């Protein structure tokens, strides 16, 4: 067994609003080992981005984060001071964001911004930091790295900027990288390149990777483990194979039905869709949050929903005793 990098149990994020408390993340558990890729999948508003921001400690002060366990490399993140958390951020854990076009500071060169990431955490000279930056730019597939260092973000394309963001995340050789929809803003060919790059880097540097996405195609390509989030909960989690082969929660099933399968989906045949919208999470939420959109919903769905084990680490939250994949 390789070492556990991140252990999250019962993570909650509450957003106080005028109308009441919005329970955006409602008690989620996951564990991540070195060398593993966890994909957190879900639609907009499912709480997947909030989850990743909560782990790295970048949520606004207004948002309340709770957890029964929030351990990073054996250290309890909840007990760390702001300064200690700051020392960890960018060093041991790094983050890549969705919008490469706006995630780099327009006022500074690529080199300055990359070097800063290293110099904030290591006592190195600017020249040493720049050398490492050039080295990493090469590693993330940017040619003429030396001259790129002198350029400003607005001189680079979206794909290049996302590579720069990845290089920035790697500057201190972190143990954990959280990538929040890193390919959403990029066009399809670039998406594939960036995903391959992330997968290669993860293997090469033996780090843990959390990839937040709404794109199951991305998941299929890169994930070791998958956590499907719906309305602030993980409704199903397991290995990528388990999730794709035997989706056990109606929501996961619905998500998979939305994707055309080459050779199986005939041209012209309508793709699946999930009717309805994500319910409001303001105030007390009870029962299964998916029941208003679920084809298999029963009266008991408004009660307590057990966490069931399908096989091994594969778990799901549903009132149905038999696997959905067998029922449908």
């Amino acid at each position, binding site marked *: 067994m390789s070492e556990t990098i991140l252990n999250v149990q019962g993570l909650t994020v509450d957003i106080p609003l005028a109308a009441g408390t919005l329970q955006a993340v409602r008690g989620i558990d996951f564990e991540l080992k070195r060398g593993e890729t966890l994909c957190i999948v879900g639609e907009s508003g499912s709480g997947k981005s909030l989850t990743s921001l909560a782990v790295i400690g970048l949520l606004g002060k207004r948002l309340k984060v709770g957890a029964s366990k929030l351990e990073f490399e054996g250290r309890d993140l909840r007990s760390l001071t702001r300064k200690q958390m700051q020392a960890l951020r960018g060093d041991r854990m790094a983050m890549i964001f969705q919008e490469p076009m706006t995630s780099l*500071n327009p006022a500074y060169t690529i080199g300055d911004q990359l070097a800063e990431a290293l110099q904030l955490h290591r006592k190195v000279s600017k020249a040493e930091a720049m050398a490492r930056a050039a080295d990493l730019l090469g590693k993330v597939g940017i040619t003429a790295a030396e001259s790129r260092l002198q350029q400003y973000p*607005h001189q680079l394309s979206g794909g290049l900027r996302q590579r720069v963001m990845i290089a920035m995340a790697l500057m201190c050789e972190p143990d954990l990288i959280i990538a929040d929809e890193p390919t959403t803003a990029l066009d399809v060919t670039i998406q594939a390149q960036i995903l391959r790059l992330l997968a290669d880097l993860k293997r090469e540097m033996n780090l843990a990777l959390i990839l937040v996405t709404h794109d199951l195609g991305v998941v299929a390509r890169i994930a070791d483990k998958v956590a499907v989030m719906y309305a602030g909960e993980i409704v199903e989690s397991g290995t990528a194979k388990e999730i794709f082969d035997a989706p056990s929660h109606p929501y996961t099933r619905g998500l998979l039905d939305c994707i055309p399968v080459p050779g199986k989906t005939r041209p012209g045949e309508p793709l699946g869709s999930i009717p309805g919208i994500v319910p409001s999470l303001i105030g007390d939420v009870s029962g299964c949050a998916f029941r208003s959109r679920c084809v298999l919903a029963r009266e008991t769905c408004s009660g307590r929903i057990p966490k069931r084990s399908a096989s091994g680490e594969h778990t799901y939250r549903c009132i149905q005793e038999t696997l959905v994949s067998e029922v449908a």
Partner: protein
Amino acid sequence: MLAFALKRLGLAILVTFTVSVISFSLLHLSGDPATSLAGENATAADIAAISRQYGFDRPLTVQYTDWLWKALHGDFGESYYFKLPVADLIADRLSITMTLGICAISFALLTAVPLGVAAAVRPNSVVDRTALFLSVAGQAMPSFWFGLVMIVIFSIKLRLLPASGSETWRHFIMPTVVLGYYAMPAIMRLTRAGMLEVLNADYIRTARAKGAGAGRVLFKHALRNAIVPVVSLSAVQMGFMLGGSVVVEAIFSLHGAGYLAWESIGRHDLPTVQALILIFSCFYILFTLLSDLANAWLDPRIRVG
């Protein structure tokens, strides 16, 4: 950067040239200068004589080039009223106005920018409310009234500061505060608005994700991007302060260039007015040029295509 600077410099020179033509034309737009100089009871012969003496009988282009050539060498002719060289007359006055202008804009920037940043960091907090109150008060209070109140308090009641004159640095304290407070609200509000926008930007989150501390995020990553419009505004304010500080100069009896311009207009002292307009405009152009260059340095998107 060099190409950008040269382009801006070229533009500035063109604008200066245009302004020089306009300020030269003023003399002739306000009627025949010889007639107005000669006075009401002058004969046609008197007027012709004056016209010859001052060179008004020459073609306009010749007069203009002659005037410009002399102006470039610091010779703005002789004041009709004081019978003194305009250049000497202005030199003293201008140093007072410049001192006041620089002190006032510095005062405005040094109070407005930190206050704007603090207000943006905690919107709707006590600091933000206080800053809003100060800026509304500054905008609403006429400077002549604020100046008089300051004189009543600090000169008459407390006897701390001199009420008029320009002999020592202490004479400049109240005028600086009054004039600076006039410019402060706009700078403060613009800093606040800029910072609020920039602090929500994705690259600020990136900086925090790198592990940068609050101060570094605020001043290195945010302020540099938020300050660009503030620089432009300050240049305009500074230009305004040079020519528009008449009221403040009058209240505190600072005989500055603004006050001189106002007096000279009343006295039909055209060479002085011409020279002052040209000088004020040149300073205005200079400040704009400097702010353009400063902004190009701050924001690479302006200088690198």
